[in-house]
């Protein structure tokens, strides 16, 4: 047995709390256990850099850290940056009971929770256990830190056989190793064997991730629902459910559940980005604008932001500017310089420079279409066409926007082949086969005069082919007939927006134009009334 004081001599500890007295008192406590190396930080940013310098053995982190990241987000961030070493013990200190927080921590789970108030004795006994556990797992962690997963897996089996108290922990670690290796079948069988014993939320979550990766999104969705029923605050389950819905091309449900998740927990870049993309799909530009804005604000603390977030925000802003001349347009114009500045600072590359120049000259052209601005825009587009590297998806979106609104033949002929080429590389979310099936189903129901079912089918079809004016007409027609038949109007605002957008491109001489206008007017009157 190691002398208890000796045991802590080589242990390093990082303390993070925004409350100074508590920080100090924690420091005194751990020093009295024999710890020589103690660092203290007051905010997550400092802690990130301090940890990446020393890789402490134990992190004692308060959940509430004032502005910036909270204790759980810091843990996620350490994981995203691939900083967190195996064997580091992350202890989250909370003022409330852990259950309130833990459901947001299914993916990145602290090694222990400590509820305030606690005495030195409690802290000591918890740390003793963590240090003991680290000792038992040390060979496994070493193998993992050396990137030897196979060795780690067999060491897990060995440890489980020797020490039955760490059984579940070993299973859990094994499943995580398989997940990292993208071996979903093996990971799933471990999660299922745990679930057979007990319905633990993290195992359900793990199994759901595997099912989705294996293409069984329905099964994944069932598990997400189970987790969320047990705990309505389990935002990670909502996020995963959203991925399932997207996989199933059910964007309406994906959008709804993302909004719900955001209401519970808005400070996640991935979640806000998802919201922004879905809102853009449904032309809810204000929502998209605010979501991207939040992404860019959160970028200050996270490595998860990308150049595309900035470019997409420029596109959303420009679309708002084009569709509104009032306060919203003025508001978004103010965003441009900030976004340019951030791009220059964070992503200095030829592509990002080119994107900024294109956007600038496009906005100048929009302000004055008569003068020389058009020529400048043409020149910039030529340079984009000559750019040799693949373009970011958000850059391609911007090109589409320019093509659509710059009434210049030369620009269309320059950009069109480029956009087509780049778009072909992206996996399109438009599912034409599914859309056709639902459209067909809608037609059958329409002929049977089952207008409500028809409307539902057309809505799904349109969501899968958002630019198809025929489906939009079908949808509006079904809504109109349903109203005539039953005095019932069930078209949602979102469905209206989708239809409106799909029909916008119809030229006035198109034979469908007149019908589309009267149906749109009817729907608009119903929605506003």
């Amino acid at each position, binding site marked *: 047995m190691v002398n208890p004081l000796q045991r802590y001599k080589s242990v390093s500890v990082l303390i993070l709390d925004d409350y100074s007295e508590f920080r100090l008192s924690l420091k005194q406590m751990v020093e009295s256990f024999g710890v020589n190396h103690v660092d203290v930080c007051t905010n997550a940013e400092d802690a990130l850099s301090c940890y990446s310098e020393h890789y402490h053995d134990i992190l004692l982190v308060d959940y509430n850290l004032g502005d910036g990241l909270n204790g759980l987000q810091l843990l996620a961030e350490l994981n995203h940056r691939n900083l967190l070493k195996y064997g580091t013990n992350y202890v989250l200190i909370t003022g409330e009971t852990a*259950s309130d927080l833990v459901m947001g921590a299914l993916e990145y789970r602290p090694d222990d929770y400590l509820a305030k*108030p606690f*005495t030195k004795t409690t802290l000591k006994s918890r740390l003793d256990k963590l240090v003991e556990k680290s000792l038992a797992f040390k060979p496994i962690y070493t193998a993992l830190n050396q990137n030897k997963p196979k060795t780690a897996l067999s060491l897990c089996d060995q440890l489980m056989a020797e020490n039955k*108290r760490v059984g579940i922990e070993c299973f859990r670690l094994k499943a995580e190793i398989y997940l990292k290796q993208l071996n979903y079948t093996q990971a799933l069988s471990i999660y299922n064997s745990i679930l057979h014993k007990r319905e633990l939320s993290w195992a359900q979550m793990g199994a759901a991730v595997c099912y989705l990766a294996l293409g069984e999104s329905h099964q994944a969705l069932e598990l997400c629902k189970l987790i969320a029923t047990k705990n309505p605050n389990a935002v990670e389950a909502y996020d995963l459910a959203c991925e399932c819905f997207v996989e199933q091309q059910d964007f309406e449900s994906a959008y709804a559940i993302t909004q719900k998740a955001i209401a519970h927990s808005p400070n996640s870049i991935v979640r806000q980005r998802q919201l922004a993309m879905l809102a853009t799909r449904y032309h809810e530009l204000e929502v998209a604008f605010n979501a991207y804005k939040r992404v860019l604000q959160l970028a200050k603390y996270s490595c998860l932001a990308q150049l595309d977030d900035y470019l997409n925000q420029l596109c959303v802003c420009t679309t708002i500017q084009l569709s509104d001349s009032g306060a919203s347009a003025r508001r978004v114009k103010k965003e441009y310089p900030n976004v340019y500045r951030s791009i220059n600072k964070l992503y200095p590359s030829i592509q990002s420079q080119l994107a900024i120049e294109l956007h600038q000259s496009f906005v100048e052209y929009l302000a004055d279409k008569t003068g020389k601005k058009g020529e400048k825009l043409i020149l910039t587009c030529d340079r984009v066409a000559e750019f040799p590297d693949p373009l970011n998806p958000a850059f391609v979106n911007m090109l589409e926007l320019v093509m659509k609104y710059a009434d210049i033949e030369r620009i269309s002929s320059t950009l069109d082949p480029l956009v087509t080429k780049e778009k072909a590389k992206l996996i399109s979310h438009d599912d034409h086969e599914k859309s056709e099936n639902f459209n067909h189903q809608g037609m059958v129901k329409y002929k049977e005069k089952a207008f409500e079912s028809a409307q539902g089918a057309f809505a799904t079809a349109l969501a899968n082919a958002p630019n198809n004016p025929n489906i939009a007409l079908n949808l509006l027609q079904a809504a109109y007939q349903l109203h005539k038949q039953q005095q019932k109007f069930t078209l949602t605002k979102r469905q209206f927006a989708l239809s409106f957008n799909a029909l916008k491109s119809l030229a006035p001489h198109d034979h469908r134009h007149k019908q589309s206008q009267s149906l749109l007017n009817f729907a608009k009157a119903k929605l506003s009334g």
Partner: protein
Amino acid sequence: MEDNKIDFSVVLGASMHDMKNSLCMLLQSMETISQSIEHTPQAQSEFAKIHYEVARVNSNLLQILALYREHNAQLPLNIEEHFLDDVIDELLAKNEMYITNKNISVECEIEQDLSWFFDADLISNLLNDILINALKYTSDQILICAKLVDNSLVIEIHDNGDGYPESMLEKANNEMTSALLSQGRTGLGIYFANLIASAHINKDQKGYIKLANDGRFGGSRFTLILP
């Protein structure tokens, strides 16, 4: 406006966070003072009292929040595997000062390597509240047992005090309603214990508690059953 309505549980959470920081500091200061003064029996006993009262305040705070959450259907559980010896050790460590000072003998009967699935925070709070109560009313003996019976975890706390008053036994075992709250502090504790126990559900079976005056030393017996 509806949007501006404050979520009371957030307010409660925030002020609890602050109050708990205070309690933490209080405990810390006491430990520091305790190290720097001469330990007369009287000082010892005063320290034990402060510890005991801090534990009670904390326990109350937790219960209020948990009750409020339950009322609003937002009491989430964090079910994990826990080893009973760990849980009970921590429970005793928390109350060590009071136990030593009052010369109470505490025995434990826990099956070796016994583990079970539950929310450790909520169950520790529950047991702590029951133990605090037992410490207060016992003459000098307490027994804590943990075992598996019919695929459920059974935890018992026995003492050798006068036992629960008749009126409470009746209310606790039959109606288990807010009527218990009229029984004062202990009533609230029992109400809370039942709430936490019944929130633990496994395969359609709910957890529950039992109160009786048939303890092994002739006093009260509190039983918690978790499926």
